[in-house]
């Protein structure tokens, strides 16, 4: 029980775990959707503290991981242009494309810059009218309002040298795709807390009803996760399948109306390829027609792109929860955070990086020295 002592309130964690042991009479399989939740679960060893039979499958909620290879290759083709300042959140820089990554391009002289907010990219475009400033707009519903405002603000400022390369993804269609897959073992979901801060949880109610699957909106602290798991297991044991909210301090049923309005104005729903998973209908956002002037994909013709994934990477099976990183032959050997073959080993929200940083080892297989620090 060494992990429990690191909890903010170990006593409360023990109470929740004891309650879970009392409530759970059978094995159940749950999926946490958000990569931030995966990080907490693996780091704190929550999955190892759960009663026997309660299994956590890690979901696809890592935006960096599901950003399609074609978008990355396009980003790099644009970033390589001499007139361009290419801006991105930091965790996209080391994600491998077909041939290279943004960080390597930067090392070779491309002007690639990390921003902490898309508004920083707009500011840069104001300051550098002589250059094209492009922002790589990826993420789930949590990030979409910020990226929408960057476009609205650039429009208000009359900036003609700002554009966005958009590859937004939406959580509910991703969950539906998992539920529809023949191999689906998920019996309950922990929904992503901050996605629901923006969107609320009404979209999840039809899912819970149609697939008879409990969905608990859950935060990302260790105690949030224990409570979310307990709420989901209690529903499963009682034969209920509704949406419940564990993360009451930050989530309301209808979400943030102003943020949703900005998303509706700037984006439209589109089919989207999820890296490693494939195309899911109506599962992403792209710029609405009236904002096409800010679309980097239209502004910069980079010609035909042919994408090549690394043959040893099993990211798709990791992202759908079909396999865990320690099942992968490359994990910790050919693939490490310093030299990643796939995106889940790069992002702080990626399942492979979470396993690696927690020192989880493949059975009887020597790991690269990095893991043994």
């Amino acid at each position, binding site marked *: 029980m060494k992990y429990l002592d690191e909890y903010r309130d170990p006593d409360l964690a023990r109470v929740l775990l004891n309650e879970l042991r009392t409530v759970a009479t059978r094995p159940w399989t749950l999926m946490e959707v958000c990569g*931030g939740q995966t990080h907490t679960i693996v780091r704190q060893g929550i999955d190892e503290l759960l009663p026997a039979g309660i299994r956590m499958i890690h979901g696809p909620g890592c935006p960096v991981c599901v950003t399609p290879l074609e978008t990355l290759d396009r980003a790099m083709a644009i970033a390589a242009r001499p007139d361009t300042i290419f801006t991105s959140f*930091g965790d996209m820089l080391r994600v491998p494309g077909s041939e290279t990554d943004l960080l390597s391009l930067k090392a070779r002289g491309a002007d690639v810059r990390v921003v*902490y907010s898309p508004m920083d990219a707009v500011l840069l475009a104001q300051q550098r009218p002589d250059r094209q400033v492009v922002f790589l707009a990826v993420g789930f519903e949590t990030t979409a309002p*910020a990226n929408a*405002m960057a476009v609205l603000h650039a429009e208000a400022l009359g900036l003609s040298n700002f554009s966005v390369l958009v590859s937004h993804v939406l959580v509910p269609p991703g969950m539906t795709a998992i539920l529809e897959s023949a191999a689906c073992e998920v019996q309950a979901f922990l929904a992503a807390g901050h996605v629901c801060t*923006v969107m609320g949880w009404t979209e999840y109610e039809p899912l819970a009803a149609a697939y008879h699957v409990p969905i608990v909106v859950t935060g990302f602290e260790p105690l949030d996760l224990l409570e979310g798991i307990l709420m989901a297991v209690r529903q499963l044991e009682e034969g209920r399948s509704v949406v419940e909210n564990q993360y009451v301090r930050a989530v309301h049923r209808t979400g943030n109306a*102003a943020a949703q309005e900005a998303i509706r104005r700037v984006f439209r729903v589109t089919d989207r390829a999820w890296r490693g998973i494939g195309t899911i209908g109506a599962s992403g956002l792209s710029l609405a027609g009236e904002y096409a002037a800010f679309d980097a994909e239209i502004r910069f013709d980079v010609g035909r792109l042919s994408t090549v994934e690394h043959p040893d990477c099993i990211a798709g099976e990791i992202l759908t929860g079909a396999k865990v990183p320690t099942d992968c032959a490359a994990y910790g050997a050919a693939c490490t955070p310093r030299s990643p073959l796939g995106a889940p080993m790069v992002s702080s929200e990626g399942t492979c990086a979470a396993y690696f940083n927690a020192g989880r080892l493949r059975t009887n297989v020597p790991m690269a020295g990095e893991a043994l620090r």
Partner: protein
Amino acid sequence: MCLGIPGKVTEIYERDGLRMGTVDFSGVRKEVCLAYVPDVTVGGYVIVHVGFAITAVDEAEAERTLTVLRAMGDAVTAELGEPIPAADGAGR
């Protein structure tokens, strides 16, 4: 990428027509867009994601969450651009 960091609004102003403000994350001060939290006032607490407040939150919850986030070093640094300083008297 969906990490949200709670902080205290210390200043609200308008810049280029946008509702902006300064948010104090236990000592790290950042400019944050407040367009999506129209009801928040100075002294209130918000959860911030990529430079945008996405919801109001109460003070006790904010401090509680910061304690947990301090232990998540790398992810927070990526979100905020720098780590959250240790709490006063925390000795680390």
